[in-house]
């Protein structure tokens, strides 16, 4: 009795519009259909709301037009459009806490969704809207608080009219307006339809709550999405279905830049079960079918004669002889002294006058994102020629502009849906050759029906963009007491931003060098430089970006300097941070958290020999310090405990921060212990998790977190806990084994303990 359109997830035929049947908006639309009169209609999701919203105030500053963000339903639940994509970092909950605090509504009553592209949602203080750079909360905090306060003011105003009392006599309690004098109260849900017609007050007219009075900000409020995500109800791009949809699988050229020549067995493939059609795409072939498995089986059977690019090709080309090992050698030996990114004092003279000069070459590796959700995109052309897209993305407006550019459609005729992200870590920005949606658009056009393209895990490993590789030549100068007086780092690398734009910018790429630059240690003579070497690999942003590798490179070399100078690495860092109260406090805090600094090696209770390492990082406006304890087990590193003290200035949700630290520790351990994208003969050696190992549960460390609210300017949380983890581990291993660690991953070493 089943057919493709008759699964249990299909909600029914109530709206024959082809709305995706298992997306939460559908449920909202259905729910709203019955209660439209009782809802504070918001801008998006309902055509009426959109028209009203657009007519209302064209020039309103982003983050001030309440109806674009909030709907309050008769049952007092509050639907919030989040300017930031939820992908595991807990931003939906944080947004509900921030808005709820000022609106006076319990965050638990919120239903949060990713907002569509739109002027209203460009709420970041830097004039952007992206979910990245650990910027969401810190760059929208005052704006989102004010949004909640404006909504509260509108509800108060509506209540004043309803009760015919001066607004000054009214106050609020969570979810309702109260008139203390008469003992009357009205729920927000009841007031919402009336409040809708209120003009949005002047944004400057509302007063924000005193932080000492916060009920939800700063508290470990439970995440809003946990039950849905524990019961399979959360909907990701890969899950979205629309009526009449076909599905497609692709086979990409084995190397980037190659184009489709002849398809040798097209007839045979077309005759395979379930195949609707075979298509040629830029650098790929596709099979469209009713069912994805049929499409995948067929597309992998296609035999393509791939053609080398012509002379005039502008594509980044992966040559047939490219190998990561050879490229690392090239980076290590590339002539030149690089372009200055950060300088202080006079490094050359200081090195010349130093008591001891230490020179060493360190390196990082390419990495894949390896998020668990394989990328997908669903494209549908509607009867009126408009285009609708469902796809994972970290920047709706940028994607909308990209879609408009590629399709030639007016942005007003494009609707972009942004479902939950099944992990992202930087995977879903505009990456020319790593986006699925252009394929979905082309196929939908060619078959005249909606098409969802899913990349198999193998195709994802082939086309994912990589965290850059860098080889850094360090020189350090020590004085007679063993204190560092000079440090030079020349990083041979291409930064992710340079990689994405496929050329050098006018300025150096900060994302290539952050973590070598911006260190807080008082070394009087410094030179940090980049030696630009273009790679054929496609590059992208990876959780904590440049810091993900550069703090490893710097902090491990700093330990090498400490050892050469006969200094304890903890004491040396304290000395180099003298006068820096915030970081001294942080460093002492992590030592205290770990039971007092104890470098080892020492014998643990279970008889294993262990040592500890320490490292610091200052990424994305936050400060972090990590101590890791390791032993050697069967020639490989076991990390027992990670202690992390983190100071983001001020916080919104300590429970989510603790979860983010745990996650960042896991990814940091994965990077330092296991991960490496290896290319041989122009091809990635790994196309799945079998050959690209990521951290497994048995290699996870215990994690101990101390959050410090120093009151400094608010920093980020998603990425900052990561960068100090790999160097803390490597420093511990160097100490334990006596073998200096100058590269990742540690699985490349064979240790004896």
């Amino acid at each position, binding site marked *: 009795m089943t057919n493709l359109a008759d699964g249990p997830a299909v909600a029914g035929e109530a709206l024959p519009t082809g709305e995706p049947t298992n997306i939460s908006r559908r449920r909202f639309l259905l729910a709203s259909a019955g209660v439209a009169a009782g809802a504070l209609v918001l801008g998006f999701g309902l055509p009426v709301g959109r028209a009203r919203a657009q007519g209302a105030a064209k020039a309103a500053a982003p983050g001030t037009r309440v109806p674009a963000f909030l709907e309050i339903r008769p049952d007092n639940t509050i639907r919030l459009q989040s300017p930031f994509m939820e992908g595991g970092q807990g931003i939906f909950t944080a947004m509900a806490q921030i808005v709820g605090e000022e609106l006076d509504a319990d965050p638990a009553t919120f239903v949060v969704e990713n907002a569509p592209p739109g002027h209203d949602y460009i709420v970041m203080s830097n004039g952007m809207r992206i979910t990245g750079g650990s910027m969401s909360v810190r760059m929208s905090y005052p704006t989102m608080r004010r949004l909640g306060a404006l909504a509260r003011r509108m509800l108060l105003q509506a209540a004043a009219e309803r009760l015919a009392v001066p607004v000054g006599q009214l106050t609020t309690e969570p979810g309702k307006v109260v008139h203390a004098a008469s003992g009357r109260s009205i729920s927000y849900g009841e007031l919402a339809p009336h409040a809708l017609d209120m003009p949005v007050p002047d944004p400057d007219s509302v007063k924000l709550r005193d932080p000492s009075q916060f009920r939800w900000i700063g508290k470990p409020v439970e995440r809003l*999405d946990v039950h849905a995500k524990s019961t399979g109800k959360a909907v990701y791009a890969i899950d979205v279905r629309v009526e009449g949809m076909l599905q497609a699988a692709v086979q990409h050229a084995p190397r980037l830049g190659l184009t489709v020549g002849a398809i040798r067995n097209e007839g045979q493939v077309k005759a395979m079960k379930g195949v609707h059609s075979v298509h040629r795409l830029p650098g790929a072939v596709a099979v469209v079918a009713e069912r994805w498995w049929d499409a995948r089986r067929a597309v992998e059977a296609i035999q393509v004669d791939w053609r080398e690019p012509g002379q005039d090709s502008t594509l980044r080309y992966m040559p047939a002889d490219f190998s990561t090992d050879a490229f690392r050698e090239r980076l290590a030996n590339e002539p030149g002294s690089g372009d200055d990114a950060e300088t202080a004092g006079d490094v050359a003279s200081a090195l010349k006058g130093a008591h001891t000069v230490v020179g060493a070459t360190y390196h990082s590796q390419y990495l894949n994102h390896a998020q668990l959700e394989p990328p997908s995109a669903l494209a549908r052309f509607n009867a009126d020629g408009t285009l609708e897209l469902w796809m994972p993305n970290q920047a709706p407006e940028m994607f909308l502009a990209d879609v408009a550019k590629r399709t030639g459609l007016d942005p007003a005729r494009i609707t972009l849906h942004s479902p939950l*992200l099944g992990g992202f870590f930087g995977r879903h920005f505009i990456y020319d050759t790593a986006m699925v949606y252009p394929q979905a658009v082309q196929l939908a056009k060619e078959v005249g029906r909606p098409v969802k393209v899913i990349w198999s895990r193998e195709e994802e490993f082939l086309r994912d963009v990589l965290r850059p590789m860098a080889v850094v030549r360090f020189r350090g100068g020590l004085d007679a007491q063993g204190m560092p007086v000079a440090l030079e780092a020349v990083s041979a690398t291409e930064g992710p931003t340079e990689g994405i734009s496929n050329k050098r910018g006018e300025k150096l790429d900060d994302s290539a060098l952050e973590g070598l630059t911006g260190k807080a240690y008082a070394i009087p003579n410094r030179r940090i430089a980049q030696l630009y070497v273009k790679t054929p690999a496609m590059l992208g942003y990876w959780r904590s970006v440049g810091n993900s590798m550069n703090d490893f490179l710097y902090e491990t070399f700093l330990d090498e300097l400490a050892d050469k100078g006969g200094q304890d690495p903890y004491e040396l860092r304290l000395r180099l941070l003298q006068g820096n109260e915030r970081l001294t406090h942080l460093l002492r805090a992590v030592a205290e958290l770990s039971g007092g600094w104890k470098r080892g090696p020492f014998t643990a209770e279970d008889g294993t020999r262990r040592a500890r390492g320490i490292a610091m990082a200052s990424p994305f406006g936050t400060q972090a310090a990590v101590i890791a304890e390791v032993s050697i087990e069967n020639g490989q590193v076991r990390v027992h405990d990670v202690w992390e003290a983190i100071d983001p200035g001020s916080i919104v949700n300590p429970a989510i921060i603790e*979860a983010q630290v745990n996650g960042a*520790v896991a990814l940091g351990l994965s990077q330092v212990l296991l991960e490496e994208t290896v290319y041989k003969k122009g091809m990635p050696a790994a196309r799945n998790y079998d050959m690209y190992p990521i951290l497994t549960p048995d290699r996870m460390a215990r994690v101990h977190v101390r959050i410090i609210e120093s009151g400094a300017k608010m920093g980020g949380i998603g990425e900052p806990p990561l960068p100090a983890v790999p160097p803390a581990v490597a420093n511990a291993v160097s100490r334990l084994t006596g073998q200096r660690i100058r590269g990742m991953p540690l699985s490349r070493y064979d240790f004896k303990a």
Partner: protein
Amino acid sequence: MELQINGKTYEVQADADTPLLWVIRDELGLTGTKYGCGLAQCGACSVLIDGAVVRSCVMPVDGAAGRKITTIEAIEADDIGKRVVAAWVRHQVPQCGYCQSGQVMAATALLKQKPHPTDQDIAAAMVNLCRCGTYNAIKAAVHDLAGGGADQAAAAGAAGNAPQHPAGKAAAAGALALAVLGTPGHAPARQGGEG
């Protein structure tokens, strides 16, 4: 071919060698079960067959015919599954959530077979990948469910007493889960990793 999923019977048209995962997701529209790797590496596709956890991405659908399949959609209809979900909420386990359907299924299967698993049992059973790094939260939730942890469980000698699911049946399902479906052009899945 008929499939029994979550207490309902479905007639499906897929070829016998189609992975169960794609029948569940595409043909039946039960999208709570996730595709992650297609090679039995990550466990995002875990379902229960006769109470034992199976990686549905490498299980041919005909191997599941006539057997009792449970997917995440029905997890709270199961007493143990309901407890697992409650523990997941209590410990605030998920981040992106994509692997969590599989994690919840793996934990449920473990507790069905061993109501009071030891640390070793937990480590052996909870092997699904999580890129967000929720491993410690998962471990805490399962320990919580194990009721007092390894020592108490060992003392009580409770391991292995899963009334609803005789061990023989579970073992058979586990063995079947190891059946590897060849994936064109790629190395076959490694063994191990089946909870």
